Structure formats: structure tokens, C-alpha cells
């Protein structure tokens, strides 16, 4: 599958609030823990060899599960490949918790769910749709069940 690698590499260079050296082990049998600079940018987790500018790889953080493995380690598993775990070793229990929390919240789908919750709740409490004042009430991405309410004019299906 093709992807715009240059642009993704460029994305990896942006400043990030979550970047640290962690031990990382890939999902394949025989993979060992290696020290990597791990960096969270939007919904991607980039990992670099220390002091290298270009990341070795990127993980899109959608449709994944984050689990605690032990007091200082967590894993990321993708729902389509539940047996393959990416393992991350942190320096402390606190750091481990912070990373897990950040990665869970780094998913676009997670944000969308929260947005829908806030929107519904605000409407319930105030009787008003909070998005209406910004003129973005109709955007598909903000709908409760956006798969079901696409009107013909909203999609360009031919």
C-alpha cells in the first residue's frame, strides 16, 4: 500500500510533548528490546534510533489496544493482529502510566467519541447544539452515527 512517506517523515520532526527514550520490542518472534527514541505526534507513534533524524518507523494509533504488561511496561496491539504486540519499557511506573494515557488519547476516533459525548451532553443541559454557533453542525465527522446519515449531497458518490 502506497503512502506519502516524505510527508510522514516531515510530520515526525514536529515538536512533541511526548518524546522519550524507551525500550521497544517489535511484534515478531525473535525481536528483542532495543533503545529507541519514541515520539508521539498527532495519531502516530514514531520511533527513531537515538540521535538519528529520520524515524525507523511509524505506528498509526487507530484501532489499537494499549495494555499494561508490568509495573513499568506497556504494549500496543492492533485489533486486526491481536497476537502481535509492540512492547515498550519505561523508566518508571509513572512514566509508563503517562505514555499509556497519552497513546490512548492520541486516537482520532477516541477524540471523536468524546466530542460526540460533549456535544450531546451540552445539548441535553442547554437545549442548544454547541457546534451550531460555529456553523459546523453538519460536518460528518461530528455526527453521532455518521455512517447512517450521509445525504446524497454530502458525498460525491457517482
Amino acid at each position: 500500500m502506497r503512502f506519502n512517506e516524505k510527508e510522514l517523515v516531515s510530520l515526525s520532526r514536529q515538536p512533541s510533548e511526548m518524546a522519550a527514550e524507551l525500550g521497544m520490542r517489535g511484534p515478531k518472534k525473535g525481536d528483542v528490546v532495543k533503545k529507541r527514541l519514541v515520539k508521539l505526534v498527532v495519531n502516530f507513534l514514531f520511533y527513531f534510533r537515538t540521535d538519528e533524524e529520520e524515524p525507523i518507523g511509524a505506528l498509526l494509533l487507530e484501532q489499537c489496544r494499549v495494555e499494561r504488561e508490568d509495573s513499568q511496561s506497556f504494549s500496543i496491539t492492533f485489533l486486526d493482529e491481536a497476537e502481535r504486540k509492540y512492547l515498550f519499557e519505561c523508566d518508571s511506573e509513572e512514566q509508563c502510566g503517562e505514555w499509556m494515557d497519552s497513546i490512548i488519547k492520541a486516537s482520532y476516533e477516541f477524540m471523536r467519541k468524546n466530542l460526540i459525548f460533549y456535544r450531546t451532553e451540552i445539548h441535553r443541559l442547554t437545549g442548544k447544539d454547541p457546534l451550531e454557533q460555529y456553523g459546523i453542525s453538519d460536518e460528518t465527522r461530528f455526527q453521532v452515527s455518521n455512517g447512517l446519515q450521509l445525504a446524497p449531497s454530502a458525498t460525491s458518490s457517482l
Partner: protein
Amino acid sequence: MKLNERSVAHYATCDSPPDKTGFLFKKGERNTAYHRRWFVLKSNMLFYFEERDGREPIGVIVLEGCTVELCESAEEFAFAVKFDCAKARVYKMAADSQAAMESWVKALSRASFDYMRLVVKELERQLEEIQEAAGGGCAGAGVAGLQGRPKLARRNYVSRSSIQDEVHRENGVGWSKPPVALANGFVEGGSSCVAWDGCADSGNSIGICDGARAPPVPPRRRGASLESPVSPGTVCFSKLHDWYGREVEDLRTQWLQSQ
């Protein structure tokens, strides 16, 4: 650079609802003819398939940081997805109608993670205010009750009036909008409720439109000019929305003038 491609491809076809789908013509890289592809927009990822019922995407364009512009082209209803990194590829596409082009341009230009995050933070802030107001003994006061509080009036009133202006302007141009399905959208106490775990998220606090303290510069904005389309250099939601609205308006004007 490696990517968890299998999982990314799975995301394209899994049952999470897409934000937009449809056929578009995409200009090839080496073969510069336009090829008709089925596009699926999910979050900040634009997938394309050879066929509508394709099992796996041929490719994906990560849209974070992109700008969407009309482009000069022999093709009608053409637009381009551009990035500001060095030697970035320009993705040229064409729709089948004016309405489809506008719709795609609008959808793609707002597909970023940053935009979603901004809207979430804004609603989170609003809900907190409402809950605080309710907790302060003004149960049921709703939004109207908030404007009586001086701090909030200063924070909110100005920003909302400028957004209102923008909305009226945009509405006056008569965007073809899909039928509003608000009734559909508000399922009371629906299953979509996700319990926010009470984390104040202080680490990531952006402090939208907060005059009381200087908001931390969001990571992406450092060094970006105010004119930069995806990084308006502001954490103020009203300004960001203002900017997006103007961009779409400009595109429309450009197209009308080219006719």
C-alpha cells in the same frame, strides 16, 4: 520508513464510519493520466481503492499538515492537496461536479487531527463551564446564565460574535449543505457516551481564547506564519474557524471567477 501497513489498511476497511467517500480522479505520479479511484476519508487519512468494493486500498495520503487548493488544470473541478515539506508531492484530483469538488475540498481541509482536537477542547471547556455554573447553584441556568459572570463574558462573548459574523457570511454565499439532521444526531444518553476519566489534561491544556493566561504554543504552530493555512498561529478556536471559513470562501470565489 516502516509503517504498520496491514493495520492501517485494516483501518480503511473496518466498520468505523468514514467521514466521506466517493469517486475522484487522481493524477498518477509517473503516468500522468487521471485515474478514477474510490476514495475513503477517515480521520486524517485519505485512502484510495481501485474499485468501490476493493478489499484493500492501493494507497493512503496522510493529510495532517496539508493544504487544499483549487488548481489550474485542463481537468474541470480540479483541486490539489499540498504539503509544505521539502520535495513534497502534490496530489492532483478532480471531481465530477462543482458540488462534489466543494464538498471534498471542505472535507479534506478540515480532516486534520489538530482541527478535531481544537473542537474537542472547545466543547470540553464549554461543558466544564456549564457544569461549574450548575454546581454553583445556578441549576438549569444554561448558557444564558454564564454570560453574567464577568470572566466568562470577556472570554466568550467577543469570540462568539466574530464566529457568528463568519457564519452569516458563509451562509449568505449559499453553500450547498447536506440536510441538517440534528434530530438524528442527538440520541439522548446514547451508547456513544464515553466517560472522560476526569483527567484535567493539564499537560495538554491549550486554553482556547483564554485571556487570563498566555496559552502554551501548540507544538505545530511554532514558526508557522499566521497566513499558513493549517497553522493559523492561534489557539483561538474562533479564529481557526474563521480561517477555515475564509479559505473555503476564497476557493469558491476563485472558481467562480475562473468561469
